[in-house]
């Protein structure tokens, strides 16, 4: 089929529109990262130029390494995100399996009860959560964040994984039962490997808001030794407002790890979302 000229024009138009929006999406980030590697004078004189041999400077990063404890913030964030994610995926998959596989009294009710949490933000319970953490002595303890994020992530995880597990062949699980596998083994060795794409999707979706959250670290764990990178960057930048080199470097440090993670997983993200679509 030969393409009529109008569709060629439309194709070019699409590229112009998408390239234009891509520029809008990436430009602010690019400006920050470029200027983080320049001297203070160059930041102001030519903000849109990439660093040259003359303007290149790492002074901002030096300030950070001497003044802020970004490594420890990073470890805190990684711990909280990693542990929460593991719990959300494991517990969520277990509950999803129970809800999708077995017929029992209250099944639909439990599914609804958990699904409510998808729409209602956990932040609205902050007042009581803080009181609870104070009573439990968990303030300024990463465990408090892990528990809250796990509760926050479970509803969506259960919901998505239930949908996916319903699609798994019943014959396969029955074949496992005939081969003598226990229900636990069926879950861990047959079902879990088959929902890996869905698990990856849930992981990406739950990971981003946890890593990026400012509210709960600010309220539950603001101490220096439990600061997450999001809170750490916020506080640091607040203190060094006038030190442009340090601020730009801090922002770059906060952007780059997320960006790398995202580029690693972005395929998974879209594949998971479109899993129902492109079989």
């Amino acid at each position, binding site marked *: 089929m030969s393409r009529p000229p109008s569709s060629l024009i439309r194709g070019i138009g699409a590229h112009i529109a998408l390239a234009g929006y891509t520029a809008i999406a990436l430009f602010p980030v690019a400006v920050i990262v470029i200027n983080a590697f320049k001297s203070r004078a160059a930041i102001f004189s030519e903000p849109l130029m990439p660093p040259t041999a003359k303007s290149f400077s790492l002074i901002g990063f030096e300030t950070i390494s001497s003044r802020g404890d970004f490594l420890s913030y990073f470890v805190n964030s990684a711990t909280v995100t990693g542990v929460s994610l593991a719990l959300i995926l494991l517990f969520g998959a277990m509950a999803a399996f129970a809800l999708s596989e077995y017929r029992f009294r209250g099944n639909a009710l439990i599914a609804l009860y958990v699904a409510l949490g998808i729409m209602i933000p956990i932040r609205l319970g902050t007042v009581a959560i803080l009181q609870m953490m104070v009573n439990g002595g968990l303030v300024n303890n990463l465990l408090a964040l892990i528990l809250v994020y796990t509760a926050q992530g479970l509803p969506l995880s259960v919901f998505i994984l239930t949908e996916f597990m319903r699609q798994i*062949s019943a*014959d*396969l699980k*029955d*074949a*496992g*039962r*005939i*081969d*003598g*596998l226990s229900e636990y083994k069926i879950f861990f*060795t*047959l079902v879990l*490997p*088959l929902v890996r794409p869905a698990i990856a999707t849930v992981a990406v979706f739950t990971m981003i808001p946890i890593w990026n959250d400012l509210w709960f670290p600010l309220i539950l764990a603001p101490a220096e030794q439990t600061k997450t990178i999001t809170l750490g960057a916020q506080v640091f930048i607040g203190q060094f407002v006038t030190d442009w080199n340090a601020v730009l470097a801090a922002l770059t440090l906060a952007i780059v790890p997320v960006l790398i993670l995202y580029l690693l997983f972005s395929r998974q993200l879209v594949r998971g979302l479109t899993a129902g679509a492109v079989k």
Partner: protein
Amino acid sequence: MTAPEFALKIEGLNKTFGDFHALDNINLEIKPGEFVVFVGPSGCGKSTLLRIIAGLEHASNGDITIAGRRANDVEPSKRDIAMVFQSYALYPHLDVRGNLSLGLKQAKKPRPFIEAQVLKAAKMLALEELLHRRPSELSGGQRQRVAIGRALVREPQLFLLDEPLSNLDAALRANTRLEIARLHRQTGKTMIYVTHDQIEAMTLADKIVVMNKGRIEQIGSPMELYRRPLNTFVASFIGSPQMNLVPGSKIGLKDVSLVGIRPEHLTISADDGPIQGAVSHVEHLGADANVYVDVADIGLIVARVAGDVEARPGETIRFDMRPDLVHYFDEQARRIN
């Protein structure tokens, strides 16, 4: 140890889902070595019955005895059965060898034994070359053979096959049917086979169990069912094209509710046959031809005649039939003669 009289015995079995009576008072005896086919339209309960025999579902009441041992409360893996699923249900993360051996490993059989069993089954099914492949790298027919092999290695008392051919194309289906018949001869094991396809049932079975709406309509050998269907359901389910059922009153038989004549038992007669009508359509199948005839008062009747028939739509045609091949049914659709 004396061999038990029955490989499988089911007594007074019922299964209800809420208000729905899926299986109604099922009684069934299967002798060792028999090839039994459960056949019936979809939703008739044949698959549910098979899953209850496998232990994947539980009967609401009634008894299941497998090889002389009451099996109601025995787990599927301890029932000495193996099952081949419609969708094959191969473990996607294991290669062919892994699929074949998982059940035996789970039963903690010694390694050399497992190895020997796997090789034996692979040889029987021509799977030796494929042992290292994953299910995703196999064709439909190969997957089917692996699924059968997974059942074979367990050397069960009872093979359960749930519509195993329905995902194959027509040519492969005929081949695999022969393959299954050969396996049955070679192993001499008891097999229960579920299908909705009466041709599979007729060609494979020693004994056919015809089911409808949760009940067993009739149990018998293929030819018994063909020659002496106990009711109109069985009569029209077995045989293709379907048996013609004509109200007795329309042909002057007062004490017969329905008269059944198989299409292949109608013969074209020169001038004096009792059934006469206008040809409405002719299907040429090669060796045979199906002639659809519009008979006044009765409606459409089909006759299966020799392939060289020269009937044209619109022509008047007359049929004859042998009285000893005609079936009579009463008001409850039960056989009379």
